[in-house]
């Protein structure tokens, strides 16, 4: 679904690259955590998928299409296939819950009847039934993030990018959000989530890609937040390893 081939992104020619020769493939329907310190390249990774930035070298493929070949007037179509969720929710404060979610459909020209039908369904999926008329400031942080997720998935994108979606939330609320993301993933949406939250990563046991200074230093299936032995070259093999093998591996036990 998402494929990086030797992608390098340089913002400032005098500094080190934000991403340095990154090759990575994320399959359709996969749930992937993107971990690493601030400045390790996580956000750049997400921005390249959205074609917010252009890779300095290498190719980024989204849904089989090289994003470098998408002309600027067709970028909106690419973005319709990708939902995005942020740490700071980014809801429209003067619109209620229903209108916030409906906004994502209005601006791409969906008819009123389809909006009236779809929005309540999606709000139900994220667990906000009956809160359509609430304003964002009347909701808790967790509820606001649920609205943001509903808005990101209301147009049924194949990919959901989440940039530290639990960064502003307490651990219990965060787990609730993870439940929603997991449910969306179960419905077939590819989810890529950048995070610092070790509890969540350790709890979920999904694929973990670790970036450090723009380089992929770890790529493991069903992994933990940190690993004792970061193995770069063999990480692709580990992703495909079975549960038993992983349990025996020192990194999986920590």
């Amino acid at each position, binding site marked *: 679904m998402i494929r990086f081939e030797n992608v390098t992104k340089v913002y400032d020619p005098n500094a080190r690259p934000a991403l340095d020769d990154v090759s990575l493939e994320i399959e359709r329907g996969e749930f992937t955590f993107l971990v690493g310190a601030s400045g390790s390249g996580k956000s750049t990774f997400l921005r390249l998928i959205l074609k917010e930035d252009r890779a300095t070298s290498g190719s980024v493929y989204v849904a089989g299409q090289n994003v470098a070949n998408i002309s600027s007037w067709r970028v909106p179509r690419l*973005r319709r296939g990708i939902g995005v969720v942020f740490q700071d929710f980014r809801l429209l404060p003067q619109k209620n819950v229903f209108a916030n979610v409906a906004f994502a459909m209005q*601006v*791409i020209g969906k008819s009123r009847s389809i909006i009236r039908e779809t929005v309540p369904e999606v709000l139900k999926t994220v667990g906000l039934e009956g809160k359509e008329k609430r304003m964002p400031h009347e909701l808790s942080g967790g509820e606001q993030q649920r609205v943001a997720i509903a808005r990101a998935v209301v147009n049924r994108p194949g990919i959901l990018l989440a940039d530290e979606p639990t960064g502003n939330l307490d651990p219990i609320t965060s787990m609730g959000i993870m439940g929603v993301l997991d449910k969306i993933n179960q419905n077939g949406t590819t989810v890529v989530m950048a995070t610092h939250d070790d509890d969540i990563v350790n709890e979920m046991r999904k694929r973990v890609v670790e970036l450090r200074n723009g380089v992929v230093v770890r790529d493991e299936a069903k992994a933990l937040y940190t690993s004792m032995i970061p193995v770069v070259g063999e990480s692709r093999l580990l992703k495909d390893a079975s549960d038993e093998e992983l349990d025996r591996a020192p990194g999986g036990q920590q």
Partner: protein
Amino acid sequence: MRLAFILGEIGSGLRRNLSMVVSVILVTFVSLTFVGAAGMLQMQINQMKGYWYDKVQVAIFLCNESSTSAGCASGAVTDEQRENLGKMLESPAVKQYISDFQFESQAEAFQHFKDQFSNSPIVDSVTQDQLPASFRINMKDPEKYQIISETFASQPGVETVSDQRQVLERIFVWMNGASVVAMGIAVVMIVCAVLLITTTIRLSAFSRRRETGIMRLVGASKTVIQLPFILEGVIAAVIGALLASGTLWLVTLWLNGDLSRQFLNTPFISSAQVLVVAPVLIALGGGLAGIASLLTLRRYLKV
């Protein structure tokens, strides 16, 4: 749906930015009023030219006893000289340029003079033989005045050849100057208007960056994101243009009311001629606002 959405966005943009929108309306109003005034002054000049040039004549003044110019050294014009001039006017070489001519004797000239200055004491101090007799010529093409002047100025018995058009020309030069000044002010005001529109659109884009950011992320097209901003500027400018057109219309009403009673012989432009200027002003205002908005958005609203 999309149309309703865009209209809603425009409405909220105009409301949120009300004071700036009002200033855009006022500045475009003033600037386009000057543009329109310059245009209408030109129309007025053309109208007056059309009206007067049909009536103005070239006059060949003949020598009288008191003439002092070089051509009159031999004294007043003789009958022979006068007949000679009349024949020249009838000759084919000259006749092709003139439609007709009359001879005005000194007696007739004195009569006209008395009519023209009937309220002035100067009439009492002027006698008939101080005024020159003249040939009054209506030209087929007033531009060909030079030919008549060259042919007759050096003829014996001719004091001077004068073109009444030159008197009018002086008025038109003055009016032209006024319209150039109006145009100059208009240009400065238009620059102000464009800069103000640019700033307004920038503010508007900034105050709605949250919305546009989300629109971008969910894949709204460039048109849907930018159109509300562009139309916001265009609508404000068009309102300004309409106000300017209304003002010019009021001016023509005044010209044809009060002023035409004072200047009976002056043909003023009619209110209907505002209908020619108004679409130009609206197109100019709307077009400039649209282009200014578009260029601003290209810089301040990433899509």
